[in-house]
């Protein structure tokens, strides 16, 4: 749908104008991501990071079609049908949420298309449900939680209180943390999805005798929890995955997040030329600091470009091999795919700091080195 292009920001339109003007695009990419409603911030970041890389490559043979899934699985499925049936794309990407990915990815890959995941990494797609055409460029869902567990060990925590929303990703998060954490649990709680008041949970934490807290509460839930936690007078150290401490929402949490340690495979101060250039150019292009999601979008596009340079997308085997090689300069430094096409990468512990008026993160150290995932062994590919 050419009309969708109007929806893009000016910069992205400029990037696309070049590709649209080309005689013929050789690779057609379908991006389904969340651009409206709650959670739109993540999708917008992935899109902007992705389009920035495409623009910087100067390539005219990659055409990107972008659609908004409104964070509704049925809309995402329908858009995927559209991408495959009507746009006849070669590669798909963009989905933010695990449940949407589970709805879209299996049927897309079954139809012979490539799918590059810039954010979601449900365990089902990493283990038994892995597919040769599915590449995850971000992380397997458990990774950051596992790193949080590993960090908790190294920080000497012996008794953690852990909590997450009562839905599959929440259960995966606690499982991931427990997989690496060697201490005891002071308590384990599942909260309501979308819950905004955590007074009851905080009271339980206070009474539990824990020496640390691990939580996975994405989006607004995490903001609410952190503000209320900071105000409660409970001063146990907090560990969590990067999602609640990312550039986009950190400003909304404010001082309540200062000093919190969180785990991430990327940060803006990772020291390599690609990353430095990415942070500068993203800021110049969009006027804001890049987020984790933007870096994932950027890396996804660069992976794609590296494969396009090496192989013709119509030769599926060659193209797959080129993707698998992952010979691109990642913002994360070293990046490789495991046998299940999920990343093998370092996961860092970072700390929330304040730079002038802006809250951001600083890397403390590596939490897990060259980390793969727990499901790779189940993948028969």
């Amino acid at each position: 749908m050419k009309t969708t292009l109007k929806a893009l920001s000016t910069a992205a339109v400029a990037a696309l104008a070049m590709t649209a003007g080309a005689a013929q695009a050789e690779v057609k990419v379908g991006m389904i991501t969340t651009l409206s409603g709650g959670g739109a911030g993540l999708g917008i970041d992935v899109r902007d990071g992705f389009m920035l890389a495409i623009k910087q490559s100067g390539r005219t043979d990659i055409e990107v079609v972008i659609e908004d899934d409104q964070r509704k699985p049925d809309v995402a499925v329908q858009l995927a049908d559209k991408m495959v049936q009507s746009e006849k794309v070669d590669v798909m990407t963009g989905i933010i949420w695990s449940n949407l990915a589970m709805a879209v990815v299996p049927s897309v890959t079954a139809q012979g298309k490539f799918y590059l995941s810039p954010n979601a990494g449900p365990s089902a797609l990493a283990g038994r449900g892995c597919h040769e055409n599915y590449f995850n460029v971000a992380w397997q869902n458990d990774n950051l939680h596992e790193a949080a567990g590993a960090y908790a060990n190294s920080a000497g925590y012996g008794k953690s209180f852990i909590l997450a929303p009562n839905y599959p990703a929440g259960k995966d998060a606690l499982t991931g943390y427990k997989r690496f954490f060697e201490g005891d649990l002071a308590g384990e709680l599942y909260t309501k999805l979308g819950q905004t008041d955590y007074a009851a949970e905080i009271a339980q934490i206070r009474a539990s005798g824990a020496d640390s807290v691990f939580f996975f509460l994405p989006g607004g839930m995490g903001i609410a929890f952190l503000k209320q936690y900071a105000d409660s007078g409970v001063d146990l150290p907090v560990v969590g995955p990067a999602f609640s401490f990312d550039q986009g929402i950190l400003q909304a949490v404010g001082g309540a997040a200062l000093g919190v340690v969180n785990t991430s495979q990327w940060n803006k101060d990772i020291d390599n030329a690609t990353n430095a250039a990415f942070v500068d150019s993203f800021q110049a292009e969009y006027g804001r600091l890049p987020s984790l999601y933007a870096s994932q979008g950027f890396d996804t596009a660069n992976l794609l470009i590296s494969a396009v340079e090496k192989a013709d997308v119509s030769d599926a085997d060659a193209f797959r091999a080129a993707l698998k090689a992952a010979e691109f300069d990642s913002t994360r430094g070293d990046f490789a795919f495991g046998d299940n096409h999920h990343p093998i990468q370092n996961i860092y512990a970072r700390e929330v700091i304040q730079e002038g008026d802006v809250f951001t993160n600083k890397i403390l150290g590596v939490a897990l080195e060259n980390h793969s995932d727990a499901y790779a062994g189940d993948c028969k590919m």
Partner: protein
Amino acid sequence: MIRETHLNLGIIALLIAIPAWALMADEPFIITLMTRAVVFALAAVGLNIALGLGGLVSLGHAVFFGIGGYAMGILAHHAQTYTPLTEWPFLLEGTKSMPVIWLTAIVASTFAALVIGILSLRTAGVYFIMITLAFGQMFFFFAISWSAYGGEDGLSIYVRNGFPGLNTLVPVQYFGLCLVILLAALFLNARLAKSPFGLALNAARQTPARVETVGLDPTRLKLVAFVISGAITGLAGALFADLNRFVSPTMFSWQLSGEIMIFVIIGGVGRLFGPVVGALVFVALEHLLGGLSEYWHIYLGILLLLIVLFGRGGIIGMLCGRERLHD
């Protein structure tokens, strides 16, 4: 003013012509979109029986839509993973057969509608709206935490379920199947509206006291309407799940209940083809406005507002005027 029957024939023609054109122009996605509209229309035809004939403003019809969806999801999931549903008291296997799935969806949603209806019909007016909404929320939260069937992630089915003699993976064949079911439901709906039951139900909506004094039970009439309505919406849910090859708790969400209601209102409450027109227009708007702007919900909102404020009787009401009497 257009004669309503002429308009209805025109709509049926459109339902056949658009996919036929899409088939020739090799635009399979248009067919998928049309299938979506047809399935939504079926769900709304269901609601229209409760809402249009029975005057029951149910903001919980997503319950039945979701139950239908999960009937498909659960049966197909077990068939796909070769695990039995239950081994006790007797062995029950999953299935990939659409007719069996549909029957399950209808039976399950009939049962749910019966229970919800009996409880909800103790109330009336706003309370009825809210108690149906509450039931919807119960199912929604239950589905989210029902980890055996995917919780919030939902269930994915890799291959669409089968129907004897058809290749349901071919968009136009699946569309045809859905269209036939929609037309059958519309036919049933038309007969129902004119039947003795429809006559009594119509009166129960307008003047329950009168219905009582002629010796009939308006609550029971409404309950039966609610159950029929739920069963049809449940069937639509199964078709919708198969269209997407996916079910998730969003099929239970109150926004979905609201959308089904919007289809009915846009098209015209109580009008036979109201839900069809409403669903077609909504899907078209979603498709066209969605391409125009990230903020397309604003335009959708304004459009809906204009329809409520100035368009009496929905689109069919605007085109055809008041409903003709069935004589």
